[in-house]
């Protein structure tokens, strides 16, 4: 076991509030903390809007913390590193952003998140706020569909949810739209090196020097298969196959694709991977209409990436392409 990873932090117990403070400052007035809890919200939520709340454990920045703003979420709730937020945080943020049309919860499908968000939803309902929940569950590494974890595909779900809730007239419709989109969303991850938990300084797993792990989770929780290190082309083929075969994506499908950097991998590597993913998809008759490459949902300094495909129709493409603004991601019309 090597040395503990050096992190540029202060007191780890105060880490999450400091992240929130830094992000609020970076937003130049468009975000503000939710008083008293580890959450932040927009300063300019329109009246009458279906509100969108996202969140989960911290340590995956920019997901979910930073995807708050016009065209994205109205609030994000921040658990400690890799730990679901507690119900009180979620409840306070829910109350703070509710504008009379209910609140949509969007978060990753993990036992901890499910339980804490459900408790908060019950508490909110008890206070007269309607809540609907859509869990991101895109990870093909988990066999049973209802058990699937939410990983890189969370970006497209959050992006679309932001666009949907911006114009939605009802909470039910917003949730239904997002669930329909989710049926065409699939992701697989791979790790070649570990990230570490800031609280302990320990890497969350150990991989031999010549191995990689396919299906690695976004918290370093184990994946499906350890393999010998391979070249970019072989790895990209393998991962494309896992994603395509799962749905399956078919000839004639149009997709948006995301190569998500888990932390320490370079854009250089992801661009090399992109070549092969594209040639494989082309061979399968699948058209890529949009490409996103970068660190969208990270796992500290984990080295590796995930490949996400989202099947498109005109509505879904419109939601993903709609303008938005946040400290982590912005796009014009």
């Amino acid at each position, binding site marked *: 076991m090597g040395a503990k990873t050096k992190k540029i932090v202060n007191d780890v117990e105060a880490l999450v509030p400091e992240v929130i403070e830094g992000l609020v400052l970076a937003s130049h007035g468009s975000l503000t903390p939710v008083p008293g809890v580890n959450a932040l919200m927009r300063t300019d939520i329109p009246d009458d809007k279906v509100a969108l709340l996202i969140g989960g*454990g911290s340590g995956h920045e920019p997901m979910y913390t930073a995807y708050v703003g016009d065209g994205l979420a109205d609030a994000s709730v921040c*658990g*400690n*590193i*890799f*730990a*679901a*937020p*507690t*119900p*009180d945080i979620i409840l306070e943020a829910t109350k703070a952003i509710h504008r009379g049309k209910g609140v949509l919860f969007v978060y990753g499908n*993990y*036992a*901890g998140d*499910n*339980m*804490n968000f*459900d*408790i908060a939803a019950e508490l909110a309902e008890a206070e007269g706020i309607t809540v609907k929940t859509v869990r991101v569950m895109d*990870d093909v*590494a*988990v*066999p049973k569909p209802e*058990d699937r*974890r939410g990983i890189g595909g969370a970006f497209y779900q959050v992006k679309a949810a932001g666009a949907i809730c911006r114009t939605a007239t009802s909470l039910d419709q917003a949730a239904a739209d997002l669930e329909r989109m989710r049926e065409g969303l699939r992701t697989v991850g791979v790790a070649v090196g570990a990230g570490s*938990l800031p*609280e*302990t300084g*320990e890497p*969350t*797993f150990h991989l031999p020097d010549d191995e990689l792990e396919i*299906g690695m*989770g976004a*918290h*370093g*929780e*184990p*994946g*499906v298969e350890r393999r010998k290190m391979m070249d970019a082309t072989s790895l990209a083929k393998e991962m494309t196959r896992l994603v395509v075969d799962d749905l399956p994506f078919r000839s004639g499908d149009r997709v948006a694709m995301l190569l998500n950097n888990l932390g320490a991998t370079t854009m250089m590597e992801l661009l090399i991977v992109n070549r092969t993913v594209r040639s494989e998809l082309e061979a399968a008759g699948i058209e890529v209409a949009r490409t996103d490459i970068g660190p969208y949902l990270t796992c500290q300094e984990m080295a590796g990436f995930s490949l996400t495909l989202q099947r498109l129709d005109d509505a879904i493409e419109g939601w993903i392409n709609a303008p938005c603004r946040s400290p982590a991601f912005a796009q014009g019309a």
Partner: protein
Amino acid sequence: MSGLGIEDTKARLTAACEAIVAAKDALCAADRAIGDGDHGVGMARGFSAAAEALATKPAATVGDLFKTVGMAVMGKSGGASGAVFGTLFMAAAKPLDGDTLTTSGLADALQEGLEAVKKRGGAQEGQKTVLDAIAPTIAALRTVSGEDITTALKTAAGAAKAGVDATKDMVARTGKARTLGERSKGHVDPGAQSFALIRAAFAGEDATLAG
């Protein structure tokens, strides 16, 4: 039949909280094997808040003490364990509306807690979770429900420990360990370990975990 009074229960719950805080690193190590390595962090955060709350909040019933622990853990731990142990203690508090904790009272309370956790998390016994330490503990308490609680808790020690050990051979079907599938075998469940630790400390036994 005699039982534990409020002060005695509070002292034992406090000891349980302290045992969790002391086992922080060992619980993280257990979670690194099959999960994301943070179990000890969240548990320590929640149970140190619980110890503080026990020291300051007034209690009219033993249930109030369990509720105090449950609220602190639910509000401070986060993660799966925050919801699980928070729910366990809060639900267990409900039937404990007297000022004495008896063997059968504790068994009933844990039963209530077990049901609530199952409902909350959707897991069943046999899926490599805390449930696999709670359920055998209840069963063991039931078989000695005539005994004094301090004796009964000791009798139940073996059951909790056996429950933890049994998780070694189980395949995880929930929580962060579930993708491991068959590879999750050979490691005990960290949440089950935490519950066994709480029981041991509450029983007044040595409650430490090797890192």
